């Protein structure tokens, strides 16, 4: 397969970036998208040029490191996959592929296609936990029964990999899906109830401070989320937030 790649190149956070076009040949359908970029990079290195930098690590769709806006969609055209699990068989010979970093004011570019998603960490730090000591002096696990449906919903929310596709897809660069997934995970479990009021308020406050946009319910985040995190979580967070606010 022969392709034309248009890739955002930017030396560092302060430099001005631009799109650069690279032709690439010999791409096979069995390659993952990142393996295709490996081939490009090997070629660039051999030609004495600087390879394209992109975030990636586990390459099995769970660490959330890989990102990339591919032809205008986070993680490319396939649904429920991360870029590392996107295979080149989803493209055809002669295609032009536009590759950009995830764009948001809260995700500044570090280099080329790498962005800084530290804002997500800070949202979690603001309250994405249950305040129990890790000393081991806890009560027996089975003394806290949890309704299976709640446990399953909580798990579904907790599968968020923090990749930032929701922000990248949203026309407003909103981080509501990410934040609400964590709020929901705890809101659905008895362990999370004690701090529920403070948690949602603190996390939303931090989210707003980071400069993410507002939610206008376009639903793009849910569609593009590689883990299929549901919009129900955002509704739940809104409920939790308003009820927390009314409690003061």
């Amino acid at each position: 397969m022969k392709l034309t790649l248009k890739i955002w190149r930017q030396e560092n956070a302060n430099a001005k970036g631009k799109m650069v076009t690279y032709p690439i040949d010999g791409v096979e359908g069995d390659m993952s998208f990142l393996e295709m970029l490996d081939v490009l990079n090997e070629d660039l290195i051999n030609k004495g040029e600087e390879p394209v930098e992109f975030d990636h690590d586990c390459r099995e769709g769970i660490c959330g490191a890989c990102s990339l806006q591919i032809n205008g969609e986070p993680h490319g055209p396939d649904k429920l996959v991360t870029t590392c699990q996107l295979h080149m068989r989803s493209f055809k010979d002669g295609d032009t592929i536009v590759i950009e970093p995830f764009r948001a004011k809260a995700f500044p570019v570090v280099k080329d296609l790498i962005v800084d998603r530290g804002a997500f960490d800070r949202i979690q730090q603001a309250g994405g936990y249950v305040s129990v000591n890790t000393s081991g002096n806890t009560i027996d696990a089975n003394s806290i029964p949890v309704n299976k449906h709640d446990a399953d919903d909580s798990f579904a929310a907790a599968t968020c990999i923090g990749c930032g596709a929701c922000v990248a897809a949203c026309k407003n660069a909103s981080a509501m899906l990410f934040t609400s997934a964590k709020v929901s995970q705890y809101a659905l479990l008895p362990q999370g109830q004690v701090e529920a009021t403070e948690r949602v308020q603190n996390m939303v406050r931090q989210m707003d401070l980071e400069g993410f946009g507002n939610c206008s319910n376009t639903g793009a985040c849910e569609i593009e989320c590689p883990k299929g995190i549901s919009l129900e979580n955002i509704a739940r967070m809104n409920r939790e937030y308003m009820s927390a606010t009314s409690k003061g």
Partner: protein
Amino acid sequence: MSVLESKIPEGPLKDKWTKHKNDINLVNPANKRNIDVIVIGTGLAGGSAAATLAELGYNVKTFCYQDSPRRAHSIAAQGGINASKNYQGDGDSDYRLFYDTVKGGDYRSREANVYRLAEVSGNIIDQCVAQGVPFAREYGGLLDNRSFGGVLVSRTFYAKGQTGQQLLLGAYSAMNRQINRGKIQSFNRHEMMDLVLVDGKARGIIARNMVTGEIERHSAHAVVLASGGYGNVFFLSTNAMGSNVMAAWRAHRRGAYFANPCYTQIHPTCIPVSGEHQSKLTLMSESLRNDGRIWVPKKKEDAIAIREGKKKPTELSEEERDYYLERRYPAFGNLVPRDVASRAAKERCDAGFGVNKTGEAVFLDFASAIKRYGKEAAFSSGNKNASEAEIIKLGKEVVEAKYGNLFQMYQKIVDQNPYETPMMIYPAVHYTMGGLWVDYNLQTTIPGCYAAGEANFSDHGANRLGASALMQGLADGYFVLPYTIGDYLSKDIRTGKIPTDSPEFDAAEKDVKDKISKLMNASGKHSVDYYHKKLGKIMWNKCGMARNAQGLQEALDEIKELREDFWANVKVPGAAEGKNAELEKAGRVADFLELGELFAKDALHRNESCGGHFREEYQTEEGEALRDDENFKYVAAWEYKGNPRDAQLHKEELDFKNIELKTRSYK
């Protein structure tokens, strides 16, 4: 040869840990505020250790090469975590978990450590549930379990196929709580480049800020290495692309002994290699072996026909299939330990029965599970004489509920529907049991330098059982290290802050900078990946699932040659100042090129087969591993002496007082 001091407490096995905790020194809370601890790696071991140490009151600095602590590779663990809770009432106990682990490790682990692991395993589950980790539950609201390879009870707790993710996010959340309190400073996109010793004690690190390229000095009263395993020495493995041995290896170069490097786990159920461009291998959880049956065709003609695409696996009748694990190991069947399952697959493929284009794959078939579950589902929903089609439909639903995400992942990668046609799998490098030698307190041979999780060697012997890595990481981090490190730090309450302007820091920083400039200024013939792939080929072919003296000898020389070529001719584009992925890789591959040689040396010296270490010269007539307890019942801890091949061997004899050494049998 010196005798390694393992510091195992006296007394009966089951009282050792309690007694030890009662005996060791503590640091009072006010003094903890004056003590700094560095933690390298933020996976299950590092994340949980950092959170607990910070909670106790120490000032903690964490370092990870990822952009967030949440991305450590523990996140990719799928199947589950073991604990001897005996919630299923199937006769489980601390002793049984201990026994299974020691036996599974082919009697090459330290009894006291393993027993402690079993002892705290239940507490891990309590801890995680309290933290809000959403484990799978039964309809009654209580925790569900499943079974894993190498054991006869159901003791594995899980969260679908994402247990590692959920546990890691639990540890990450505990870390976040401490970051929010200001007790942890988290340095992301930072790589530890060297360990700094002052007066023979670990007193800090040199780290590279991967965004700015700055070389930084960080001091502490103790350094915890929880940097994971070294499976990426094989280039292709199930490890993350960035997983590396740098932290452990630099500590080794500074005096920490490296134990049992040749003990590598080759996981039996991975997606086979598809082509030259493959960058990593993907694991299919071992939990699939609960329901999947592994087979190859009985007749070579059929195997060839399938390879050439002339026949479909579904066309073969039951009689034409060889369920070789069930045939060879009737008691454990498809649930034999990983090393046994991997070797059996290799044996069949080497004999010409492989089923994919390259001849290196076997089938993992869910057809009978689908039927069995379908029948159950139809029966319990009142449909006593369901049709075949209805049964299969219901069965697929059950299988989807259990393994849906794994099946989906398989389909994405291989482009085949595993509900319709059997999966193809092949063994791949997955975990490394070897690592930095540690005593009972998890301290390496460098005072003040600790190793936890996969980075140390201690608990899994020569082979790790499924769902035990998560258990060990969290046990070390939450429950062991925070206690034992206090004993050491209690002597440091008057030390005060460690200065970073000492000659030791100067020297270490200079070493690091020199090394970087050497890499940047090599002749520039070949890319880093070129060398990494070559190293991987040598390792896989000569130090892989089956090894022999001749191959290992060759590997020793080839790796040395490759390393010399690397330092002379590697090409690292760009600048050292700023983000440079190639420079990062170069530093890691440089260390793999040294570790690989030590690996081969260790494998060559161990004239026996045990667990993941299989020497072709030492096998029974039936092709099973042949252990030599008389001569090799020890931990091989290697001391760095310049060239890896010159490393000096130190033996820690293993003493089995509570368990009888037997030939491992899963028949």
